[in-house]
């Protein structure tokens, strides 16, 4: 199981706690993890990545294992510790004013 931490606004939308777990078959990448999250929680479609282009929304960031993976290829494998479920994949609302 892949652990995913969602930001507060998305927890509210999906009616979940801080962390969710999703099943991913095959390669564990940003794309397959987010596909799985959206499959499990369709109310989050379009909130993390653009629904048409699949591109990450500008003020959404992806972290794992103390690394900023936001600008990695969406098809790059995530770190081993995420794949093993030891560390969460984190969806973060970028720090900004307001």
């Amino acid at each position, binding site marked *: 199981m892949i652990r995913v931490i969602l*930001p*507060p*606004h*998305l927890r*509210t*939308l999906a009616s979940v706690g801080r962390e969710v777990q999703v099943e991913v078959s095959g390669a564990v990448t940003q794309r397959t993890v987010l596909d799985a999250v959206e499959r499990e929680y369709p*109310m989050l*479609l*379009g*909130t*993390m990545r653009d*629904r*048409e282009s699949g591109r990450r*929304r*500008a*003020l*959404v960031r992806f972290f794992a294992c103390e690394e900023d993976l936001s600008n990695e290829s969406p098809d790059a494998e995530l770190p081993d510790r995420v794949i093993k479920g030891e560390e969460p994949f984190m969806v973060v*609302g*970028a720090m*900004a004013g307001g």
Partner: protein
Amino acid sequence: MSGVRLLVGTRKGAFVLTSDGKRQDWEVSGPHFAGWEIYHVNGSPADPDRLWASASGGWFGQVIHRSDDGGTTWRQVDHDFTYQPPVGDHLWYDGTPRPWEFKRIWHLEPSRTDPDVVYAGAEDASLYKSTDGGQKWVELAGLRTHVSAPKWQPGAGGLCLHTIILDPVNKDRIFVAISAAGAFRSDDGGVSWQPINRGLVSEGIADPDAEVGHCVHRLAMHPSRPDTLFMQKHWDVLRTDDAGGSWREVSGNLPTDFGFPIAVHAHEPETIYVVPITSDSLHYVMDGKLRVYRSRTGGEQWEPLTVGLPQENCYVNVLRDAMAVDTLDECGIYFGTSGGQVYGSSDSGDSWRPIVRDLPPVLSVEVQVLP
């Protein structure tokens, strides 16, 4: 006794305010969708317990919520607002072409007769319709693909479709307004559209009386007189008596004809309300005094309404969707401010009182009268 429910959208959540028909004591519930920017909350005239809320934000985009129990509980409905291809371009602020890009829903307008039907006005300007209670949205693309649309250019707030009026008599007639393109009318249920801006003059555009390009802030209609519309434009208050065939200015003795909201009294089609603000560069009321102006003659002659409103050190604004009237015998009027106050009058505007003072900045106010 009838109840009254106010639906308030703010920068950081939605609030539902309820009172009995006296409209003196109010209960406040919320924030609903805390932290989300709520551009609009509106209720179905066909089923007052069915409410719609537009929640958006720079981080996570646009979502839509629906309540079927008057705002006690909410559930998310679909939020796939896709432009029908070909998408094409409109003008950007600098006059260059830029592809249409969906940003948010500014206004939700439920059908007067069918609780499952609702229209949504978007930025970049387009009109969507759901006929299944929000499970699916379809663009009424005849508007955005109008021959004039490539010339539409955003106003300072964005290229937003902010006003949707469904004609209560002619079910095929819809009016919309877009900043800064102008007003448009459809006579075939939203399939085809025509600009209705004859008589509008805007000094800030290259051709002051062009067919499109006018910064319309808000339209209002009285249900018994659907061919008469009132408009608050960037500058000027105007009226038409032929469903937009031609407009004439009725700013009369207003101290400034710049403002955002305009509303019509529920029982007096010639009684209208505006909230003048100083100018387009100073988005607050004049002289530190919060004054609603009322005309009982359909424009030209205006009187300031001040009783119960702050008359010193007040520098708030009232946005385009933040004023509403109820339909009780003594018409109630409500508005919300950029300072987070919601004011109400239960005597057609003669006197006012704050209903709640310290909400986040108010973006929209709607009112329902409940049986």
